[in-house]
């Protein structure tokens, strides 16, 4: 015992003398977390809006085309020689840049092209202006574009800021899941499931109110597909059109369940530019009647959505 203490004391003294008793550096392997690539701005517990939904109007009712002439419509353009159309360039199947040709393509693009041809003829000069969903209302009202055709849901809040055409597509919110997950609808989602959607969209609120799952938001909903493929989230919720665009890129994913929200898409115009809205409504009725609408649906959406397309019946307020 005493001998041990002596040894300790001797060792301590030796340490002091040598002054070299600094601890040897910790040479164990450093602790490194498994790197998980995440998009910037991802939010794993987004705040859910609780403000009551504005239901003071009939969102589907647009302006009756009546006898509005094409001249009146052209007079409503910012530049009479061309038409500028705000679109998405990153929503597969609806409005996106085809990576092989670098040109805009999709259902929204086809509908917008048909409308433009109806206004300015088959040689119309169309300028596509890419924009985020947050820019849409500002873009039509600031003359950046003549109209916006970009998966835009008609609702009373937006009617206060822009004019809408009649409904040109009826979308609804659904779920995209891996086929092997066994999830077949909202009821299968438990509180340990993460469901991804774009921030600022109404989908966040709907999924939070109607299911037990934890919502995860990202600034660009395209990030959701990558997160689902990487296994960071269990499902994606958004409009079925957008989900179809994702499912088309990955054969192991499928769109499941009934639609649990109504998303009527309208084309948007500057507030007060009702002449253009009226003329476009006439043109829309025409492309529905002549089969252009059906062709576009069959080309882009029929396969991925798995149901035959039924064009919406236009509703007018006057």
């Amino acid at each position, binding site marked *: 015992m005493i001998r041990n203490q002596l040894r300790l004391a001797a060792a301590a003294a030796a340490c002091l003398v040598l002054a070299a008793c600094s601890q040897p550096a910790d040479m164990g392997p450093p602790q490194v977390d498994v790197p998980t*690539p*995440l998009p910037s701005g991802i939010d794993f517990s987004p705040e859910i809006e609780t403000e009551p939904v504005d239901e003071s109007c009939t969102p589907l009712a647009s302006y009756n085309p009546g006898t509005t002439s094409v001249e009146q419509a052209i007079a409503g353009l910012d530049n009479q020689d061309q038409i500028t159309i705000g679109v998405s360039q*990153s929503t597969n199947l609806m409005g996106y840049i085809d*990576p092989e040709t*670098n040109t805009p393509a999709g259902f929204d693009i086809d509908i917008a092209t048909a409308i433009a041809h109806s206004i300015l003829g088959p040689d119309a000069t169309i300028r596509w202006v890419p924009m985020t969903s947050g820019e849409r209302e500002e873009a039509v009202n600031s003359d950046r574009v003549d109209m916006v055709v970009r998966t835009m849901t008609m609702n009373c809040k937006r009617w206060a800021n822009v004019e809408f055409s009649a409904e040109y597509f009826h979308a609804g919110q659904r779920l995209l899941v891996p086929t092997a997950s066994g999830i077949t609808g909202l009821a299968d989602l438990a509180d340990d499931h993460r469901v991804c959607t774009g921030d600022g969209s109404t989908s966040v609120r709907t999924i939070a109110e109607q299911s037990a799952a934890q919502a995860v938001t990202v600034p660009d909903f395209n990030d959701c597909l990558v997160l689902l493929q990487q296994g960071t989230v269990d499902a994606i919720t958004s409009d079925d059109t957008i989900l179809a665009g*994702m499912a088309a890129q990955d054969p192991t994913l499928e769109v499941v369940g009934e639609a649990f929200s109504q998303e009527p898409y309208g084309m948007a115009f500057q507030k007060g530019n009702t002449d253009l809205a009226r003329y476009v409504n006439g043109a829309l009725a025409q492309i529905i009647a002549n089969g252009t609408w059906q062709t576009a649906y069959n080309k882009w959406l029929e396969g991925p959505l798995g149901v035959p397309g039924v064009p919406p019946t236009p509703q007018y307020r006057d």
Partner: protein
Amino acid sequence: MLAALRFTPGQLRGVLVLVAALILGAGITGMTAIIAKSAVIEETTSQSGRLSVAALSLYQALSQADATAASSYLTAGTPSDEMNETYREAMRDATVALATAAGEVKTPADTALVAELNARMPVYTGLVETARTFNRLGEPVGATYQEQASTLMREEMLPKAHDLQENSLGQLNDSRAEAAAFPWVAAGLAVAALGTLVWAQMWLSRKTNRVFNLGLVGSTVLLVGFAGWLATASLASASHTNTSHEDGSAPLELLAEAEITAQQARAEESLLLIARGEDQAAADRFEEHFKALTDPGKLLDRLDEAFADDAELSANIDTAREAAETWRAGHDEVVKLAQSGQYTDAVVLVVGEGGGEDAPSLWTSFTTLNNALTEATDVSAERFAEATNDAQRSLSGAAAGLAALALGALISAAVGIQLRVAEYYA
């Protein structure tokens, strides 16, 4: 013992002991100071030098890889051979630099940084390759993978590479300060020994009525030589060490920063188009990087200032500045094209081969800028190595020479005094 000092022979021996102790002290501390200096300079060229070079080239290679991967995504699955080559070379440089750094790190913090970077490397390349595959298949989700790869690089890998570089440069600066320090203890002891010798000779000449004691005079001369050599060697090596910093490593850091800033701006420019013009954050980051490069008083101006009296290097900076201006003008055109829906034209302008000197694409402008900075970096690196070699050369032989001089002075003093002592017993 004390009694002996009352008589002259005893006093003489006492003087000898004092002088011997001081000369020995000066000799030993002087020699060790020079040896330590050499070792530290050796270290700046080897261990911490190699670490900071590796950290710097890692940082550069990573940001180069990011810029090229993003650009090549825009070429719709068929990037040019040059772009492919640049990306592969950048990844090779990054992995080699990381392996080198792993062998040189000394602190647990640096070890952790290298491990974190290493863990992210395969994740990054995985994302880039997935992006390319989806892009070839024509699936737009490839764009999101490419964005995620760039986010990983921008938010995690580049900051860690930067930290590693800062740490290694910090260590290098510490070593440099150590190498440039003057050996005050050795110099002080040498001066004290000289003083004692001079006093001893005056004392002896009073005692013995003889003006010179050859041994002590010889010792004094040798000791003056010792002090002179010590001072010159130390000052020269310090000056070379500082030159290596001012002409070499300081501009090197500045050049690297400029190069990395340009590469990051290039990556953001590509991301802007990859996001189909729907990513304002990328546009903002581009502006930020470009401002840091070209605004008055920023990187290019600072480089101009650093190379003001060097025609070769300032020519490189002029080329870089010109290319940056062309790039800037082209970038504004790209933004205009993208916002007005002329996406294909925008992409061609960003990643195309351009129409020769009169109509360079942004890719050629960026490459010109990048190459000009790389050339300047090579010249600076050479100067750094030269100055470090000079610093080492000025120390060569100093340790052995100082030891010989101190020993000579010691023997000479001992003989001189001993001869006087002997006279008392004759």
